[in-house]
C-alpha cells in the first residue's frame, strides 16, 4: 500500500471504515476535508454556536428527577434533549451538517429516518436554510410515526416511502445511500446517527458531543461531583455517543447504553446488535451486526422505530470490546412501562427510544449509593409516540 492512501483512518479499534461503492469515495474525501476545515474555522464554529443557542434552544436543561431517584436509591438527573427545537437530540447533528453542506455548496439534502425525528430535524434546518430536502422512510415506520410524516411535509420536505426489505430504518438508509450515489455531485447526505462510512461516525459524534459537554459542566455545577453513571438508549447510538463523549475520559464514570430487546433477547425479534450481534459490514462500516451465518443481515425488531436497526455505530463496538462502556437491553414491554413511569414520576413524557433507558434505570434499585448522581439522557420527547402507546399500552389509563 502506498503512502498516498491513509490507512486506518477513522477507525475505532478494528471498527468503522469506508465500505461503500467507489463512486462515493471522492465525496467522502471531500466531506472529510470540508469537515476538518470547518472544525477549526472560527466562523463556522460561531455560526454553529449561534444556531444551537438561538434556533435549537441550547443549552438544554438539566433537571433533577427526585421521585425516580427515590425509586432506585440514587440522585437522578435528566439531560433534557427533549426540550430542543423539534423535540430530540437529532437537531444538534442536522444543524451542524446543514451548515457544512451549505459551505460545500450542496443545495440538495438527503436523509433517512426511522422514528421521523431525524427526518423532522433535517426538514427543519433545510427550511431554515432554503435547501431541498428528500427524506427516505420505511413504509412501516410511516404508519407508526404518521404525525412526523406530516410534520416533514409541512416543513416542505419530500418524504419517499421505502417498500423494500423490512420497510424500516435499515432499508430507508440503504435507499438514501442509493440516492446519494446517483446525485452525489449536488447532494449532501445527512446521516442521522453515528453510523455509516467515515467520516460520519466521528463527525456525528462531534456534533452530538455538545450533550456530554453541557451535561458534564451541569452535573459538576449542580452536585460538585462527577456522576457515578451516564445512561442512554442506543439505536444507531448518536445520543449515547454524544453524552458519553463528555465523560469517556473520566474513567470512574460508568457509561451504560441501553439497546432494544424487543420481544426478548431469546425471541429472535430484537435490535440488540451489541448484546447479541457479531462484527459485520452494513451501510459502510464494520461494527456489531445482527446477521446469520451466511452474512445476511437479520431483520431487527423494536417497538420504537428509532431503535429498530440491526447495526450500531462502530465506536460503540469499540467501547464494548474495550470494556469502557456497558451495554444492556430492555424489552418492548419494559419500555412501555418506562414510558409511563417517567411521565407519572417526573412529568416528562419521553420518546419510546428514551423509555428504554428509563426502564433499565428503574430496575437498578440497590445498585447505587443514595447520594450518587446518575445522569439519564432524555434523547427526545414522547409526543410522536402517544398515539401508538395509547393503542398498545398494557397499563390502564
Amino acid at each position, binding site marked *: *500500500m*502506498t503512502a*498516498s*492512501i*491513509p*490507512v486506518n483512518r477513522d477507525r475505532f479499534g478494528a471498527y468503522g*471504515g*469506508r*465500505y*461503500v*461503492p*467507489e*463512486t*462515493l*469515495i*471522492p*465525496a467522502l474525501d471531500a466531506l472529510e476535508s470540508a469537515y476538518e476545515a470547518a472544525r477549526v474555522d472560527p466562523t463556522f464554529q460561531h455560526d454553529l454556536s449561534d444556531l444551537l443557542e438561538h434556533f435549537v434552544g441550547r443549552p438544554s436543561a438539566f433537571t433533577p428527577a427526585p421521585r425516580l431517584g427515590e425509586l432506585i436509591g440514587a440522585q437522578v438527573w435528566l439531560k433534557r434533549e427533549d426540550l430542543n427545537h423539534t423535540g430530540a437530540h437529532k437537531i444538534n447533528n442536522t444543524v451542524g451538517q446543514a451548515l457544512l453542506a451549505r459551505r460545500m455548496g450542496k443545495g440538495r439534502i438527503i436523509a433517512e429516518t426511522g422514528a421521523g425525528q431525524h427526518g423532522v430535524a433535517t426538514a427543519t434546518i433545510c427550511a431554515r436554510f432554503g435547501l431541498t430536502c428528500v427524506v427516505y422512510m420505511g413504509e412501516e415506520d410511516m404508519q407508526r410515526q404518521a404525525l412526523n410524516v406530516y410534520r416533514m411535509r409541512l416543513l416542505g420536505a419530500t418524504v419517499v416511502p421505502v417498500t*423494500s*426489505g423490512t420497510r424500516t430504518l*435499515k*432499508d430507508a438508509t*440503504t435507499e438514501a*445511500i*442509493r440516492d446519494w*450515489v*446517483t*446525485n*452525489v*455531485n449536488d447532494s449532501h447526505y445527512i446521516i442521522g446517527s453515528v453510523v455509516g462510512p467515515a467520516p460520519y461516525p466521528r463527525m456525528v459524534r462531534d456534533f452530538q458531543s455538545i450533550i456530554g459537554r453541557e451535561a458534564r459542566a451541569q452535573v459538576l455545577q449542580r452536585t460538585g461531583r462527577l456522576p457515578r453513571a451516564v445512561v442512554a438508549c442506543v439505536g444507531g447510538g448518536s445520543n449515547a455517543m454524544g453524552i458519553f463523549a463528555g465523560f469517556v475520559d473520566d474513567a470512574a464514570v460508568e457509561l451504560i447504553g441501553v439497546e432494544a430487546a424487543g420481544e426478548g433477547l431469546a425471541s429472535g425479534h430484537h435490535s440488540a446488535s451489541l448484546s447479541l450481534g457479531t462484527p*459485520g*459490514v*452494513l*451501510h*459502510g462500516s464494520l461494527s456489531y*451486526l445482527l*446477521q446469520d*451465518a*451466511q*452474512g*445476511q*443481515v437479520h431483520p431487527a425488531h423494536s417497538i420504537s422505530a428509532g431503535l429498530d436497526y440491526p447495526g450500531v455505530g462502530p465506536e460503540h463496538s469499540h467501547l464494548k470490546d474495550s470494556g469502557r462502556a456497558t451495554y444492556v437491553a430492555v424489552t418492548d414491554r419494559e419500555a412501555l412501562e418506562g414510558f409511563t413511569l417517567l411521565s407519572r414520576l417526573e412529568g416528562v413524557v419521553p420518546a419510546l427510544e428514551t423509555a428504554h433507558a428509563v426502564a433499565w434505570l428503574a430496575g437498578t434499585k440497590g445498585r447505587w449509593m443514595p447520594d450518587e448522581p446518575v445522569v439519564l439522557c432524555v434523547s427526545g420527547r414522547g409526543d410522536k409516540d402517544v398515539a401508538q402507546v395509547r393503542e398498545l399500552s398494557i397499563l390502564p389509563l
Partner: protein
Amino acid sequence: MSVTTSSDTLSARFAQLRGEGRRALVVYLTAGFPDPTRSVELIRAVAEAGADVIEVGVPFSDPMADGPIIQESTRVALQHGVGLTETLAIVREAQVPVPVVLFSYLNPLLAGGAGAMTQARDAGCSGVLVTDLPVGVDPEREAWFGESGLAFVRLVAPTTPDERMREIGRHGGGFVYLISRLGVTGTQDTLAPELESTVARLRAATTLPICVGFGISTPAHAATVGRVADGVIVGSAMIRAASESTQAAASLTRALRAALDGA
C-alpha cells in the same frame, strides 16, 4: 471439460480477445435467480450464446449499489435460500468453459471466513469483485482477496480522480470495471455523455482491459461502448430477460454478441 481455476484464465481470455480484435461481452447473473436449477441453466445458456466472462452475483440482503431489477432478483434468490455456499455450488455445477467472476458485497464473503476464496477457486471462479471494498479502505482484507489466486477485479467510477485510477490499476487484476454513470445498477435509454472521456482518463492510468457496466441495456449501447472500451457488462437488462425465460437471456446474449462483433 476441464477449467483452469486461476486469475490467469481471465487474463488469457482478454489477451485472446485483444489478439482477435474483439470486445468482451461480460454478463451478470444473480446466483439462485429465478431459482437454483434455472440459475445453472442460465449460466450455461449465456456461455453458449457468446458471453466471454460471466459475473455471478452472491445474493445479499442489503444491496446498496443495486437498482430495482437486481434488488428484486436478489430477494427472490434469498427466498430460495441462496447465499455464498449455494452460489459456489451453482458455479461448480454449471462448469462453464468461460471465466466466472464472483460478484459480491463484502459481508457474505467475510462470513464465509478464511477458506471462502479457496472454495471459490475450487468451485471454478477465476475472479472476485467486491462492490463495497474500494482501494485503500481496508488493506488487510484487500490483501486477502489480492492474494487469493483469483483476479481481484476493481471498480472505477466517473467520480474517481486520475491519481486514484492509477492506484486502482496497480491494485487490481483481470480487468477494470468502469461504472458508466453516477448511480446504481439498472437499465437506461441513453449512455452518459462523459463516458468516452472517462474511458480515456482510465486508459491513461492502467494497462488492464476496461469493461464498462451499469445501464448498458441494448445491443446498440453495447456497440457504442464497444467502440471505446475493451468490453461491456450487461446486468439488469440480462436479469430482466432471465425473468422472462432462459431463451430470452440467451437471445439477448446473442444479439449483444452480434452487435459487439459488428462494432
